[in-house]
């Protein structure tokens, strides 16, 4: 048998991250707690290196390699860059938090890097098998991360829930994949898409497989009614891990949906569009309504995530190049906001104190006006108030659904975004209108302060000039041949 070595150049960033993660795992064993920061530094260097490799090899056209299982394209590269950025911010914000809680261990960073690797694989998958492998690599890292705080009963409970429900979802996904394989005879997305286009919706097995895939994807995205795990996990996990789960994996989940539904099953758009409409409407409604009554800010942000997933689905279900670009823009902006919001919770926490409740933000303007301003920026951006990035994200997805004639869905979306504005405003209210309940000064190391400032100001900058990022998203997708 003739074995032709595949082209490994397109997967260079993945190989680099894999090698570094393994190396760090070994190096970390030989470090004592005083020099643990070396692990942290190496993890950040890994992300930087991967970012440079991705940036210099930024795809101009799609390259399929590894026997059709892997694709390197502009959409993947752009998403990967933001994955690195989000992960780097997560590591940075978490550092002091972990240190104060004796959780500053090598595992956090190694598992974090493996998670990043999983996301990279999901983002670049070109076959249903690779999609699944990447997803499991990410998920298993996340289950372990949630459980890192071994002494905390809530965290263990959250990890258990996440593991059981996550496995269930993976099972669904796998079952769906097997049906698709049965109907098309291949896992290669390109072959699948051609076969699907030929058979269309007449093949019952295919439609059944699609349903299972959509269920599995909805679990991973956290769309209603498959959202049950999300609030518990967000609340129970240590905030450093919530920060991780709530940010970068959303980019990967978006890629997952794009790869499977659009690249693979694009011909079944009429079928999945209806399902996504229900998921999107239910997510926007339930997420926003239930977030109102939360007092725990992590839980509130979990429900807010659900509602944002609903908005993101609006872009995808439009099924147009414009809609996909809108959804991609939405995802990236959402991740920037989520990193900032959870990051702010982490920064306000200190030894023996978790800033978990909305009340803990009371009087932040008196304690630290700059942080209060940044948090307000993030909250207003999530609410979709203009001159902040969140507005443009909402606008473009709404435009995508209005364009295909689903005006009622757009109206539903804006009504729930007004309802949603209430709970974001409540956080602003606590920070600005209430008197502080705590007087301990907020201590930030210089690099975290710079990072969180950059994070907040980035939302303002994107609000004043969203053109560049929108353009990148549009070009990345047009290179895929969708436009």
């Amino acid at each position, binding site marked *: 048998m003739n074995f032709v070595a595949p082209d490994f150049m397109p997967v260079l960033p993945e190989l680099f991250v894999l090698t570094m993660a393994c190396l760090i795992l070994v190096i970390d064993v030989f470090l004592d707690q005083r020099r643990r920061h070396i692990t942290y530094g190496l993890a950040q260097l890994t992300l930087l290196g991967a970012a440079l490799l991705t940036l210099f090899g930024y795809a101009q056209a799609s390259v399929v390699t590894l026997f059709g299982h892997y694709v390197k394209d502009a959409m993947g590269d752009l998403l990967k860059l933001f994955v690195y950025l989000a992960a780097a911010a997560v590591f940075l914000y978490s550092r002091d938090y972990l240190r104060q809680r004796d959780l500053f261990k090598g595992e956090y960073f190694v598992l974090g890097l493996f998670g990043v690797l999983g996301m990279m694989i999901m983002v670049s998958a070109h076959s249903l098998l690779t999609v699944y492998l990447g997803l499991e690599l990410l998920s298993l890292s996340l289950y372990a991360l949630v459980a890192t705080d071994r002494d905390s009963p809530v965290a263990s409970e959250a990890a258990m829930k996440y593991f059981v429900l996550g496995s269930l979802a993976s099972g669904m996904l796998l079952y769906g994949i097997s049906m698709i394989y049965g109907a098309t005879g291949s896992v290669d997305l390109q072959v699948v898409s051609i076969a699907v286009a030929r058979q269309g919706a007449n093949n019952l097995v295919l439609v059944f497989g699609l349903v299972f895939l959509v269920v599995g994807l909805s679990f991973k995205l956290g769309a209603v009614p498959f959202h049950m795990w999300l609030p518990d996990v967000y609340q129970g996990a240590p905030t450093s891990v919530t920060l991780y789960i709530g940010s970068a994996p959303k980019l990967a989940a978006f890629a997952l949906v794009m790869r499977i539904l659009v690249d693979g099953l694009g011909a079944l758009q009429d079928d999945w569009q209806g399902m996504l409409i229900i998921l999107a409407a239910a997510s926007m409604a339930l997420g926003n309504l239930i977030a109102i009554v939360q007092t725990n800010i992590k839980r509130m942000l979990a429900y807010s995530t659900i509602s944002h997933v609903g908005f993101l689905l609006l872009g995808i279900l439009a099924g147009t190049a414009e809609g996909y670009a809108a959804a991609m823009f939405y995802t990236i902006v959402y991740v920037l906001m989520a990193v900032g919001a959870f990051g702010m919770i982490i920064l306000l926490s200190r030894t023996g104190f978790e800033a978990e409740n909305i009340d803990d933000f009371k009087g932040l303007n008196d304690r630290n006006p700059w942080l209060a301003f940044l948090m307000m920026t993030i909250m207003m951006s999530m609410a979709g108030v*203009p*001159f902040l990035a969140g507005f443009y994200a909402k606008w473009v997805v709404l*435009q995508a659904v209005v364009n295909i004639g689903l*005006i009622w869905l757009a109206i539903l979306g804006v009504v729930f975004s007004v309802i949603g504005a209430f709970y974001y*405003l409540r956080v602003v209210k606590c920070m600005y209108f209430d008197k502080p309940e705590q007087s301990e000064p907020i201590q930030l190391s210089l690099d975290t302060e710079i990072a969180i400032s950059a994070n907040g100001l980035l939302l303002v900058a994107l609000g004043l000039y969203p053109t560049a990022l929108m353009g990148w998203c549009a070009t990345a997708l047009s290179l895929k041949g969708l436009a």
Partner: protein
Amino acid sequence: MLSELPPLLSLVIWFPILGGAAVLFVGDDNPGRAKALALTVAILTFLISIPLFTLFDPTTAKMQFQEFVPWIPALSVNYHLGVDGFSMPLILLTAFMNVLVVIAGWEVVQYRVAQYMAAFLIMEGLMIGVFAALDAILFYVFFEAMLIPMFLVIGIWGGPRRVYATLKFFLYTFLGSVFMLIALIYLYTQADSFEILDFHMLPLTLSEQVWIFFAFLLGFSVKVPMWPVHTWLPDAHVEAPTGGSVILAAITLKIGGYGFLRFALPITPDASATLDWLIITLSLIAVVYIGLVALIQQDMKKLIAYSSIAHMGFVTLGFFIAFSISRHTGNLNGAAMGIEGGMVQMVSHGFISGALFLCVGVLYDRVHSRQIKDYGGVANTMPVFAAFMVLFAMANAGLPGTSGFVGEFLVILSSFKASFWIAFLASFTLILGAAYTLWLVKRVIFGEIGNHHVAELEDVGCREIIMLSLLAAAVLLLGLWPDPLTSTMHATVDNLLQHMTVTKL
């Protein structure tokens, strides 16, 4: 020649916003310096805005001082600014009132002075942006962004029920405007452009127009505010600090009226013609019913808030009377008068309501009560102040010679052409307006000295005299010689009437 001008509109928008950021940077530890900087920025902004008036060409309805830069080319959104006879006076009004607000907050605001001043300066820039924007998305962005500073102003420096009031304010306005966003997106899908002027030319079916009209109505009627979506206004006014009330009454409400002129009337003329009875009815309810409500108020700020709603009813009446006139008489004589009357009423109400809120602020700073019953005989201890307050009250009641008279008179004259009964009901304002304002003045200013608080009152100081006399001058000037204002908008009004009367079907 015009092309050699500096970008005036961008300057008046961004100078106060950057100035506000600079004031924030000076910080609350340096209140003196922050205030001085804020005043400088406010005055300079006003000075920059003056050439907009002096260089304005009143003979044309074309947009002037235009600036055009592609902003989000992928979605054909442009940074497109320009003013006509409607927006230019309102920009000047905004810049003028902001100077007064900075002066009004000078000694009164003690808590977080820099943030207070910065919020107002940033808001000023955003409001001017609303008036100057010629791109629908740019308009919407300014329109919404304005909510954040006002939300903070009411919430941080407001009264005891400030949180309720400010949340209500924010959510009401937000809810109203998001439907407008959908309408704008829909218009984009039809016109392939976000230019407001392109929307004016866009043919639309009647049912499309009706939907879009209702979306605009929701957005702008909340701002105006029209009955029955007015309930946020009394709450917001009562709880807001003096400066917040002044800006709310003088500028924010005008944005609603301006929205009708810029969007609803020219973009959906047929729907406006079909549904003009709705607006006229709501306006008359505002004039008569809200006038009666104002009569029974115990709280001075609430009374002025309700009087604002009643006066704004006149504005919307004036804007929408044209269709009725053309149906009734077959021509448009007098329709221009209604629209001009509405515009004059907007500007004049900006001065008068702002002035009245400042007057209440002057009293509140001394006695810390807004209840009418806590006063009485203020004229005995504060004669200078009493003179000002009586002047503004007379203007509010529409006394000839003050600016309040001009607008109301024009609108009533115009409504006579349409229908006697509309004019009859509208004229109720002359009675009701006089009743509630004069009764307020009687109970607060005249009579015996009510209690020891009033007996210990000190008359207005130099700072307060400056700010009140500036407004008094404006009120009298506009009342005696309205021509500079009306002549700038003749061409624009004629142009609007053309858009309104040419069917788009």
